């Protein structure tokens, strides 16, 4: 069963086409990695999946709900879809603990105790329970991103979206974030990840999508993609990022 269905989606900024006729899907329990050169529209596509960016054409379904339908309660839908951003986007005026509980309390209506228990459990899971009382400004980039993942998990998401989660990190912090993501993937979380971490893709992805100039150029099972990508563009991209 498809968790995310993207059907013939197109998007323009004025005259400029950012996405052209994109069609793909993410099945329940599947891990799909989206890669491609910068400016190819991969981040835009993933932001469209929880309605942070409007689309001009096509339909997106998440867990059977149509995003483009004006009757859909977008906030409610988003509360079930975890999202992790390139620049972490923790709320700097709230402690780590409050970052983890605010959504649970204000959106899911959980009690403070309930939210605290769930928040601390997620924090423990990413190995940062000791940092609960600190503020985001006092944490390293890798720690902040792990807190951001914990914040998303605390909402008990049905799937997770990652928008280049390791691109803004110092090299030595990439691993700690990827480890958390690998663990999530092996537990069966449905994930759509925009990333250049091909090692991560090799390890846990079921499928790899390659985008260029706003189009989905390649949508293949992992082994096919890393074996012999059909498109020349994807071959070139892989040769560039794998040989350095």
């Amino acid at each position, binding site marked *: 069963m498809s968790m995310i269905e993207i059907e013939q989606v197109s998007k323009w900024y004025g005259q400029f086409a950012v996405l052209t006729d994109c069609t793909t899907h993410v099945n329940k329990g599947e891990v799909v990695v989206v890669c491609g050169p910068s400016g190819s529209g991969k981040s835009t596509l993933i*932001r469209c999946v*929880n309605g*942070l960016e409007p689309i001009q054409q096509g339909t997106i379904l998440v867990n059977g709900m149509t995003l483009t339908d004006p009757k859909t309660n977008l*906030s*409610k839908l*988003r*509360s*079930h*879809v*975890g*999202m992790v*951003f*390139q*620049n972490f*986007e*923790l*709320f*700097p*005026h709230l*402690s780590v603990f409050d970052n983890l509980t*605010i*959504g649970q309390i*204000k*959106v*899911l209506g959980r009690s403070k105790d309930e939210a605290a228990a769930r928040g601390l459990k997620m924090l423990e899971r990413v190995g940062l329970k000791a940092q609960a009382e*600190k*503020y*985001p*400004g*006092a*944490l390293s980039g890798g720690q902040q991103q792990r807190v951001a993942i914990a*914040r*998303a998990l605390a*909402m008990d998401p049905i799937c997770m979206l990652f928008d280049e989660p390791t691109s803004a990190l110092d090299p030595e912090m990439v691993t700690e974030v990827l480890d958390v993501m690998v663990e999530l993937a092996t537990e069966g979380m449905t994930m759509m990840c925009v990333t250049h971490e091909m090692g991560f893709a090799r390890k846990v992805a079921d499928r790899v999508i390659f985008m260029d100039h706003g189009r989905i150029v390649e949508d293949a099972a992992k082994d096919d993609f890393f074996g012999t990508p059909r498109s020349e563009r994807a071959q070139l991209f892989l040769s560039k990022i794998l040989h350095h």
Partner: protein
Amino acid sequence: MSYSWNWGVFLSPTPSGSGTYLGWLLQGLEWTLLLSLGAWVIAFVLGSLLGVLRTVPNRWLAGLAAGYVEAFRNVPLLVQLFSWYFVLPELLPRGLGDAIKQSDPLIQQFIAALLCLGCFTAARVCEQVRAGLQSLPRGQKNAALAIGLTLPQAYRYVLLPLAMRIVLPPLTSEFLNVFKNSAVASTIGLIELSRQGQQLVDYTAQPYEAFIAVTLLYVLINVCVMFGMRWVERRARLPGHREGQ
């Protein structure tokens, strides 16, 4: 120049016999404080609301707030005050207008000055709050929406608390301006601090003492405001960020 200084004038009794000239000044100070603090509450609440409206993705609401700002920022304060005091009662339905005109003149003057200063300053607060909101990284709004907060919740719990911290220093200036601008209320007859000073000159012919005292009282108010706002700034500083960052 032969001017005979007489600092004792403040303690001499007024013509009515009840109280001293110092008492007059303190009465004026009371009205200035009441008027300015009241106007600041209006300005802060209304200005914040308008500042939010200017940034929401709705053309009508944003346009409405922009229109408000242009109207209240481009008309001289004195003209606005006369409009509130002399023109507004004429524009209201006859019954209501007459009721206003027959009420206690002091109340009329105070309400007109309060609304005038509040609405004028709100336009300026609005622009600062808008600037603060627009200076936030776009990702903060996305992150707030992504955990399922509605747009009003995102403003309430994430965007406004951050924007307000950024615009605290310019807001302090506006707060100070309210006290100084409140002197225009003397033109419609409200006996606030500056008007009391003038009255003192008329009765005692000691202009230097009177105006020095009035000036010092304004400075005293503003020093208190400044220290108060500095305290707020210190309290609200984002943890883990150094001063000046």
